[in-house]
């Protein structure tokens, strides 16, 4: 028994060691630096005269409307985009899993949005969204709809960004679900079919619950990433019109990189981190994803 315990502990430590060393080495220093900076008025414009201002950055942040607007934009963008992507990803993965012809072709098509260099894809979208020479308005006119200003109009800008994000990231959910579906046992599905269950019943009662751990993880990672989306928003709207699509990350970028006040930008980053940690903790605890379901015992 004692020997077993010793072996077990040695195994655990050895297996976790490389990942731990790498992550501590990479993240500890940057985290401490931005954490400390967030309590100072450090600015690259006058680096010699930095003072500790304690919570002033945070208080300033809480008092600014721009922060709350950015927070709301970020939450709306994340929730809507991730919701659409998860529904689409799970449905398409299940349909593809049941398909038996041209699977390789379809899967390759589906992965294209993840494979193409984002810079090229995003600028192509900008071209397609262009009000006068874009292909989207060309189709709108062809189908008898009013042409839209897409990225420039307050009513469609956020919607357009969600559209692009959905195009780019649904394949991520899809891929995880395909991997999940391929690793699930066949018996429950076959048993349900023998019992005469309809496809819809199988999907709701068997596929979704069995796939749930994968859907949960895909949703979690997609939300973490969507919460700090930067490039598509920066290229397509730069936060406009006005500040209607300016997310927290763009707000931090504006202060950190354009205005060079790293302290203030650091405090935005820390607030984003705290929000993500709290939401992720609640999500993981509720879904019991923090600890293993079964453990190796002796």
């Amino acid at each position, binding site marked *: 028994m004692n020997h077993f315990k010793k072996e*077990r502990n040695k*195994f*655990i430590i050895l*297996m976790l060691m*490389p*990942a731990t060393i*790498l*992550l501590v080495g*990479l*993240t500890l*220093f*940057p985290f401490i630096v931005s954490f400390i900076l967030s309590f100072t008025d450090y600015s690259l414009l006058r680096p010699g005269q930095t003072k500790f201002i304690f919570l002033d950055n945070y208080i300033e942040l809480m008092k600014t409307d721009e922060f709350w607007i950015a927070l709301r934009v970020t939450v709306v963008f994340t929730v809507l985009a991730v919701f659409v992507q998860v529904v*689409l990803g799970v449905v*398409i993965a299940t*349909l593809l899993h*049941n398909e038996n012809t041209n699977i*390789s072709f379809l*899967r*390759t*098509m*589906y992965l294209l*949005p993840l*494979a193409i*260099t*984002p*810079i*090229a*894809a995003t600028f*192509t979208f900008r071209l*397609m969204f262009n009000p006068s*020479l*874009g*292909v989207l308005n060309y189709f709108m006119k062809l189908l008898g709809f009013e042409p839209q200003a897409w990225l420039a109009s307050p009513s469609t800008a956020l919607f357009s960004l969600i559209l692009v994000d959905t195009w780019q990231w649904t394949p*991520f959910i899809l*891929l*995880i679900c395909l*991997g*999940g*579906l*391929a*690793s*699930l046992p*066949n018996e429950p599905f076959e048993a349900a079919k023998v019992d005469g269950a309809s496809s819809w019943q199988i999907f709701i009662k068997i596929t979704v619950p069995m796939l749930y*751990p994968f859907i949960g993880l895909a949703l979690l*990672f997609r939300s*973490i*990433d969507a919460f*700090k989306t*930067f490039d598509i928003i920066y290229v397509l709207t730069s936060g406009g019109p006005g500040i209607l699509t300016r997310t927290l990350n763009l707000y931090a*970028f504006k202060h950190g990189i354009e205005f060079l006040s790293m302290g203030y*930008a650091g405090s935005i*980053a820390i607030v*984003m*981190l705290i929000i993500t940690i709290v939401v*992720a903790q609640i999500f993981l605890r509720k879904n019991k994803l923090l*600890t*293993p*379901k079964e*453990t*190796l015992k002796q």
Partner: protein
Amino acid sequence: MKTFLRRIVLYIFALWSFFPLYWLLNTSLKTSKDALARPPTFIFKPILKNYIDVIKNNEVWGYFLDSLIVALGTTFFGLLIGIPAAYVLARFKFKGSADFGFWILSTRMTPPIAMLIPFFIMYLKLGILDTHIGLIIAHVGLNLSIIVWLMRGFYEEIPIEIEEASYVDGSSFFQTFYKIAVPLSLPGISAVGIITFLFSWNEFLFALVLGDSVVRTSPVGLYGFVGYQKIYWGQLSASASLLLIPVLFFVFLFQKPLIKGLTLGSFK
């Protein structure tokens, strides 16, 4: 009828995924005048000039090589380091294991804007700025959370009895891990491998700040075709299209275990 409906949905989704790429390919075969024509043109005289320009451009080949080295290195080391950690977190409970798992996850939560400057300083001091290994380390760090957590999910789906039986038969933890658990998790390794490769291949911000002169990956290189005054549509779209070929080749190689019933089904 049901099969027919399913196919319609699947092909509509394929069309939706493909259309922006079609537009990119379309643009790559147009003259710069046609590319920005009003209204947009579907039928035009295709030209190969953009492709010839790109193939002749040694810098683009350089981007391609740098991206390939970094993305392959990231996938290999990421899986090598991440899989063991994922397995332990899926199969053992120890003091602080939940917090440890969450800490790994939390490394993905910090907005990169806050990390970039300290990262740059750290790399400068270590002398690994603008090197392949430096960028590989950064990309492994950025993606390790996703590798560990997704692989952990896949290990939890494997019935634990198989591993217990192997252990009772006298195999050590380590033998059980690489002889039983790793082969059984191939669909997961395949999906996670593809994801890691694509994340690294397309990562822009860190590649720009930690690389850029000696090591310039394709996202950074292609950004060079976007000028302040003008976007060089021809070269941007032609090189992006060409860069898809190696990616699709990699995805094709790696996707085999994703095909249903190849692993667990044959095992039982």
